[in-house]
């Protein structure tokens, strides 16, 4: 103690150069953070306020006048049927794509985990859609699903008039009328117009979304699975777990909790942002059945230059996203309580 006091007293200029160094360090920290913080404000935060502000107006680009509309835009969104369809389409898409792509991702991960070295090949194949530009692949699906030219209908109609048709008509199941089955009527008539027919459009869009997304979830689950301690499986075996389902419920699924939370968050947000497939294939139709929010924003604000209205949709969209993320954060705090 005495020595420290002596040192500080006897070497004042050393002391102040230390202080100068500390100040410089602080100054440097601010400098390092300055660009990032500034950009966060300008690019991420300010636009939210801009959108919020514009959402109460009827602003258009290039138009010098701008009127205050109060909450009229919002009333339209939640009141008019075409915008209710917008919310419905978006929610439907998310509610379908998220669980299915997560389930498929998990299933694929577990299957791949159990087949040894060959699993690498499957892993690579299943991950390809994630790498390929969605727009490009959507156009390919568009062509493949074309009612007359497309490879899918072509393939399906190969089975017509043969044993394949009989099998898939399910007529061989008692009490089932084979001639009324989907496959038989399609053979007789024509196979569906997958993208143009209102009954099929949304399922197809969902399918493309799932096709693109599940590989990513698979990779995350594969990592999660390797993180499950092997001794837990041993303990479970000794405790009496003999079949796969019990093992899944007792060990695998709970240990994948953190992974699942992450996967659900990412997949949900990405599903909300769906745009490419809709803009390239359906333009929100037919009859607004695939009129998702991002497309609506694009159509209203950019193509039709109804910026005020588009801003209102943007705000609603942000609201949805924030609700999802906060719900998930809350669930994480509550349930994933591991050491």
């Amino acid at each position, binding site marked *: 103690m005495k020595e420290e006091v002596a040192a500080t007293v006897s070497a004042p200029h050393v002391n102040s150069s230390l202080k100068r160094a500390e100040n410089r360090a602080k100054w440097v920290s601010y400098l390092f953070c300055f660009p990032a913080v500034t950009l966060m404000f300008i690019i991420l935060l300010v636009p939210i306020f801009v959108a919020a502000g514009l959402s109460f107006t009827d602003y258009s680009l290039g138009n010098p006048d701008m009127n205050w509309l109060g909450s009229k835009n919002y009333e339209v969104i939640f009141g008019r049927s075409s915008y209710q369809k917008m919310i419905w389409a978006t929610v439907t898409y998310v509610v379908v794509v998220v669980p299915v792509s997560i389930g498929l991702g998990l299933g694929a991960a577990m299957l791949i985990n159990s087949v040894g070295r060959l699993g690498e090949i499957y892993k690579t194949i299943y991950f390809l859609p994630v790498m390929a530009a969605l727009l490009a692949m959507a156009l390919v699906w568009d062509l493949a699903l074309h009612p007359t030219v497309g490879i899918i209908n072509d393939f399906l109609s190969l089975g017509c008039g043969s044993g394949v048709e009989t099998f898939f008509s399910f007529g061989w199941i008692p009490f089932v009328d084979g001639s009324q089955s989907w496959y038989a009527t399609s053979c007789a008539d024509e196979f569906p117009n997958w993208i143009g027919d209102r009954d099929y459009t949304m399922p197809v869009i969902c399918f493309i979304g799932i096709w693109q997304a599940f590989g990513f979830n698979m990779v995350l689950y594969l990592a999660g699975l390797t993180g499950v*301690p092997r001794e837990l499986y*041993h*303990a479970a075996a*000794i405790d009496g*777990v003999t079949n796969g389902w*019990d093992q899944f419920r*007792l060990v695998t699924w*709970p240990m994948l909790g953190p992974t699942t939370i992450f996967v659900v968050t990412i997949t949900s947000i990405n599903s909300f942002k769906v745009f490419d497939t809709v803009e390239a294939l359906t333009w929100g139709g037919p009859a607004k059945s695939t009129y998702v929010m991002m497309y609506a924003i694009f159509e209203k604000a950019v193509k039709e230059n109804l910026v005020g209205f588009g801003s209102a949709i943007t705000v609603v969209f942000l609201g949805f996203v924030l609700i999802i993320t906060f719900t998930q954060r809350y669930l994480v705090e509550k349930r994933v309580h*591991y*050491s």
Partner: protein
Amino acid sequence: MASVTIQNIDKSFGTTEVLKKVSIDIQDGEFIVLVGPSGCGKSTLLRIIAGLDTQNSGSIKIGDNTVDNLHASLRDIAMVFQSYALYPHLSVAENISVPLRMRRLNFLQRFPLIGQFIPGAKAAQSSIKKDVDEVTEMLGIEELLNRKPGQLSGGQRQRVAVGRAMVRHPQAFLMDEPLSNLDAERRVHMRAEIAELHRRLESTFIYVTHDQAEAMTMADRVAVMMDGDLLQVDTPRNIYANPVDIRVAEFIGSPKINILPAQAGQTGEVNIGKMALAGVISTVKNSEIQVGVRPESVTLESKDFPGLACRIVHHENLGSEAYFHVELDSGERVISRMDASAIDQFTTGHEASVKISSKNVLIFDNDGQRIATSNEVVA
């Protein structure tokens, strides 16, 4: 409670032989410890007994039943793992009741939400609760019932793991290095607790560890394994005093036994260098041998004493006793244990002389096999 018979177990992983013809007869109610350095195969053997791994050849019997084809859950054994392997998402009570739930409730009864309404479920659940309470009381963890493993200390988790093993009253308890994750103080405490548990339950305990102190203090019998071979199975006393292999002698006992090269002469008299070891007659004559002598049988005398000349290079003062590390003129290092007061007499850097008491000398041939001396029988 049952005996466990291990017969000629062979196990290889790929081309590496991990267990070589291991056979042990474990008595009913015995506390046997499998001890050896890492990689000797002891954990593998334990997993084979449990049914988590299959042997390449050989068989295991628990009680009168050969269990080789039985799933782990049907062998009526319980296991405590090194990492405790508690289900992190379940509370203490739920963790302990898992083995009972898996056995007493059928698939439908275990189904989430609706399972409790299936007939028979309520009755089974209350019987489960009774057994769980009995066990938690015995282990002193009743207040922890609703906590999750993440909220428990290491020692508490260990007790919960033991509880989960106990609750089924299995025929044998298998323990895989359960104390390795505890700090030294906790470990000493838990050693006593486990030993006490064994006395109370009177079950067969098969315990695996790499710590020879644990083996010596807890076991009825110790099985020393190295590189897949079972070297010796004997009481701690015999393992210490009567090792059949030099590797056993070196592994058991701390500090390590002193090994010195020596010669056995025409009539079996033993000479270490130039010093004759009085009172020890080897049954193998005329060959190079190794003499093992524990630190407590080695004393230092002044350098004029007719023993092995040496120089003191280091000493350790443990309060009541002291260890002296000396270097012989011939180059070998020897450790001697003496009363702490000897520090006044022998200072580091000075010369002294090593005296070896002939009473507890062990002789080994150059392959490590124990050689009898004419007044004793080797185990």
